[in-house]
């Protein structure tokens, strides 16, 4: 299961589809395919039905929160130093806007191969959190997409029953997002340390609820 060949096969068979190979540098080398929301259902259906692939089993769907981050890279810039043009190292900082990601792990029961890993990214973390639902391609994505909606806040368009799964109905916010602040119930922490200690001290200092 070479992701490069799958990528070129998909791009050849689905018009207008452009995939991006997201490489994994760790020893497992499980590279994944990043697809755009527009062609997601076509890609998924092709992966499921194509004769050589037959990805009939969606074993896992999960979410990732990528908050806005600053990437600094060193670049060489030509500058005039004392009238002489020299190359100077400069740190260039770029802000990568945040987004949410849904990851699908696919296997083939029929041909006994896999996994193929698909990724989809939302536009941002606020309003543009819509992605197409793949639950009509793999029924097993149904509850998993509900869980991602609950914990990360990705709205899966086309999902037949997009309700919260783990949290209660009128819960506000999405607890697996990295900027989620949990409620201040640090009144009793017998063995507090690190972050919990900091929160417990803060609770004391502010005279929080008892």
């Amino acid at each position, binding site marked *: 299961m070479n992701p490069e060949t799958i990528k070129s096969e998909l791009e050849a068979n689905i018009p207008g589809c452009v995939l991006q190979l997201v490489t994994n540098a760790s020893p497992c080398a499980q590279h994944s395919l990043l697809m755009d929301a527009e062609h997601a259902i076509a890609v998924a259906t092709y992966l499921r039905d194509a004769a050589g692939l037959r990805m009939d089993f969606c074993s896992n769907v999960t979410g990732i929160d990528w908050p806005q981050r600053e990437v600094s890279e060193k670049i060489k810039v030509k500058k005039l130093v004392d009238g002489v043009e020299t190359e100077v190292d400069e740190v260039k900082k770029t802000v990568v806007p945040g987004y949410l990601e849904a990851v699908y792990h696919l296997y083939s029961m029929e041909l006994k191969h896999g996994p193929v890993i698909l990724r989809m990214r939302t536009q941002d973390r606020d309003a543009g959190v819509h992605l197409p639902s793949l639950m009509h391609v793999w029924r097993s994505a149904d509850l998993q997409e509900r869980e991602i909606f609950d914990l990360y806040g990705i709205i899966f368009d086309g999902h037949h029953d997009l309700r919260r799964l783990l*949290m*209660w109905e009128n819960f506000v916010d999405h607890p697996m997002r990295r900027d989620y602040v949990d409620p201040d*119930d640090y009144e*009793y922490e017998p063995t507090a340390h*690190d972050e919990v200690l900091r929160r417990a001290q803060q609770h004391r200092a502010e005279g929080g*609820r008892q």
Partner: protein
Amino acid sequence: MGSEETSAGVDVTGPMDEQLKAELSRQGIFTTTLQELYNWGRKNSLWPLNFGLACCAIEMIAATMARYDLARFGAEVFRPSPRQADLMIVAGTVTKKMAPQVIRLYNQMPEPKYVISMGACAISGGPFKQGYNVLKGIDRFIPVDVYIPGCPPRPEALLDAFMSLQKMIDEQHLTGATRPRHLRADRPSEFQLPEFGAHDLEPSSNPAVWQAPLVQIKTGNNESGDD
């Protein structure tokens, strides 16, 4: 027969002399009090409510099976209805979403009723204490009689908790200031159900049942940790 002791020198209003009781028993005369009979009956027929919340429930089930045989303690009849149960074994992680249902089940149980908080999660939230959806101990909402530490506790620990609870029941007085809750009209048998709030249960604990114990936390600027 020790006729001297029975005829004179015995305070009839106080509890019976243990020596006299033992002596009578040796002679084939069984004596008891209503309190003893009542407690003996209750402690040997504790019917637990049939529910489990997480992996501790597996140990609870194991405790009822042939190897550990909870039936020896008169507690083999797990009741699927709270109306028929005396004992609630909170076996496992209580999520905030599940907590009102657990408290409602407790409220529906008839008095006298007891609670065993089984495992680290039911006691304090355990490894999930700082999680977003785990209650930091069921004792924040309902009174707990016996705590069993462990993750999960072995069936022997549950048996030990049963025996502790039986001992506790055996020592209860039916009259006087120390009588148990179910014999006091002024004590509640139902407890407040929390509402689902925006981020947490409202209220997050019942102050009538649970108050945060005082813990010394250094308020200085140390980052290494508590002592």
